[in-house]
């Protein structure tokens, strides 16, 4: 089992009645609510948290991209990745997961090939390249890409980047959306032929999963509604792989989980409950105006979504509404409690989902720095060591940089 520490980098000081007084945490959140003096402290605390996670031996640290957003303050994940790159390089085997750059938003998209190339070389080949489509809020509303063009632009950018990473000759690219006379990306990536590619996304379609499998990528399900909400997606994901003749290696998939650890179950509730509530109530206060532009998903996905109670992330929000602490745990939205409880819940969830990579969210909403550090430390010392070898007797680690594959081979010996 691999563990990735990820921090959404939320603005942790939204007004008390934010969800009542303001339309949305995304797109229309007033910029006057952002206090750069507090922001300075937050960024530096959050970078400290990443550095702590590297010191404590997480397999990777993960950054992601959001725009005009009060819960995700990495409009440029590559900048945060850049600040972490040297520490990643100096660590024993921690990798750098960017999950990722929303390809359709980069003009020209070879910018992604270049910056990822830089990070891969600086870290000595420890980069994992995440290529998400991006949310409708980020892509359609904040960055103005028309929903109908979003996916064609994404796939074209993907093809261009991949070619830029694998083609040794200078080449031209005459695409529908990108025309470049001379494509020649310097530096080339440290890993050969290129860094592992992971595809982060919401409840993807069968077509997306097929494409992921054909390319031998990892699929990372980025939902914030927890392991039980994710079950339906992963059941379909694995069924599709079997149907298409691919293996069931759990390292082909990752899932995101909110985790809260303290000395005892009771203390976990005492320490984390208000911050989890802040996360769901304030950080996730997204107006339906911007939640999904028409055309963001294919007509078939929309229709399928309407037929299932697990059909969309919006459905996750509905299912979560009004749940108390214990219900949030019982229904899998959060994994919380003493280290022992967390180990059990996480083992159970990973088994059921059949997933080899856990993207652990450990800093939630309004959490103070010291509590986030405590959560990270307990995760690294009291939880991860007990679950690390979960899949190793059955499956080889795949879709990771060499440093991790080597570590695994050695530990198996």
């Amino acid at each position, binding site marked *: 089992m691999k563990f990735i520490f990820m921090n959404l980098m939320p603005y942790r000081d939204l007004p008390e009645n934010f969800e009542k007084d303001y339309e949305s945490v995304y797109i229309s959140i007033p910029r006057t609510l952002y206090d750069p003096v507090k922001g300075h402290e937050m960024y530096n605390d959050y970078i400290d948290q990443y550095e702590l996670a590297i010191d404590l031996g997480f397999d990777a640290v993960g950054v992601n991209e959001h725009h005009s957003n009060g819960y995700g303050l990495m409009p440029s994940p590559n900048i945060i990745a850049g600040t972490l790159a040297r520490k990643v390089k100096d660590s024993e085997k921690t990798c750098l997961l960017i999950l990722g750059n929303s390809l359709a938003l980069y003009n020209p998209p070879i910018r992604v090939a270049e910056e990822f190339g830089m990070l891969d070389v600086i870290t000595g080949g420890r980069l994992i390249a995440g290529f998400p489509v991006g949310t409708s809020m980020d892509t*359609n*509303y904040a960055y*103005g*890409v*028309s*929903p*109908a*063009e979003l996916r*064609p632009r994404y796939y074209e950018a993907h093809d261009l980047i991949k070619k830029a990473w694998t083609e040794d000759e200078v080449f031209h690219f005459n695409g*529908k959306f990108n025309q470049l006379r001379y494509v020649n990306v310097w530096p080339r990536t440290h890993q050969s032929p290129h860094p592992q590619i992971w595809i982060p996304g919401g409840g993807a379609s069968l077509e997306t999963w097929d494409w992921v499998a054909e390319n031998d990528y990892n699929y990372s399900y980025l939902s914030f509604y927890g392991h039980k909400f994710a079950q339906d997606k992963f059941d379909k994901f694995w069924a599709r792989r079997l149907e298409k003749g691919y293996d069931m290696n759990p390292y082909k998939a990752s899932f995101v989980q909110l985790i809260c650890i303290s000395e005892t179950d009771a203390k976990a509730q005492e320490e984390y409950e208000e911050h989890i509530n802040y996360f769901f109530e304030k950080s996730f206060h997204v107006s*339906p*105006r*911007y*939640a*999904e*532009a*028409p*055309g963001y998903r294919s*007509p078939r996905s*929309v*229709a399928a979504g*309407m*037929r299932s109670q697990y059909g969309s992330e919006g459905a996750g929000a509905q299912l979560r509404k009004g749940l108390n602490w214990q219900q949030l745990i019982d229904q899998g939205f959060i994994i919380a409690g003493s280290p022992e409880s967390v180990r059990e819940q996480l083992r159970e969830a990973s088994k059921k989902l059949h997933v080899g990579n856990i993207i652990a969210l450990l800093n939630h909403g309004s959490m103070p720095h010291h509590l986030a550090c405590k959560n990270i430390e307990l995760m690294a010392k009291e939880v991860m060591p007990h679950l690390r070898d979960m899949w190793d007797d059955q499956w080889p680690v795949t879709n990771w940089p060499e440093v991790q594959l080597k570590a695994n081979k050695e530990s198996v010996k």
Partner: protein
Amino acid sequence: MSSPKIETVKVRDNITAKVLIKGEGQPVVFLHGAGGNVWDPYLEELSKQYKVYAPFIPGHGGSTGNTELQGWWDLVLYYYELFDALGLETVDVIGHSFGGMLAAELASTDPKRVKNLILIAAVGLWIDETPVTDVFSYVNTPDVLLEKMFVDLDCDAAKAFSTLPENEEQRIEAIVENLIALAEAGRYMWPIPDKGLDRRIHRLTANTCIIWGDKDALVPVDYAYEFYKKIPGSKVEIIENTSHYPQAEKLEDVVNKTVEFLSTSPVAK
């Protein structure tokens, strides 16, 4: 109200259009708004006096070509070819909202193709002080959208607009088709429905009638006068107490004004 005929028209070797057709007499083309092509009482009334052609935009209602066509100019040329395929060398065109943007562009790019032009609550121009509302952002809140489309939410037209089929599969199909129309129109309207008509509208020679709701909550009535200023000799008809769908909210009034304008203007051949 009997249903119009749905005709499949070959526009190019690999592109076909679905066109609603009904009526006899002088031809008139109706270009629908971003919400999709709906045979409403306005079109029904017009079909009693005209031969009405209402094509679905590519990608919507069975019309193909949405992935072959790239960008605004491909779409404009496509419509000329569609007119050719329908045998309409010079024709009267009515455009509603997004359809108005398209109609104005067709009349500006090749002025001889459009004889009489009716723009109903058309987009296509842009005024920084009174921006066009981002209609797409209201699709997830149908109640709010309804309030923006109509002044009187209790009128029959508003009820017809907001009523979905009771049968679940039919309801899903209706919602999905509406989203498709929005996404396809969105190719040309996103994120701002201004593709430079302002720089070309001086070419327009069609007799033009501009019909607008005085309380249009999506495309403010200021735009009626903006079109009027840019189209010398045009006339403006303000429909009181209506919003973005005046031909539904004041059916008789708008039908009368349409017929009056088309019958007193020089007839298209």
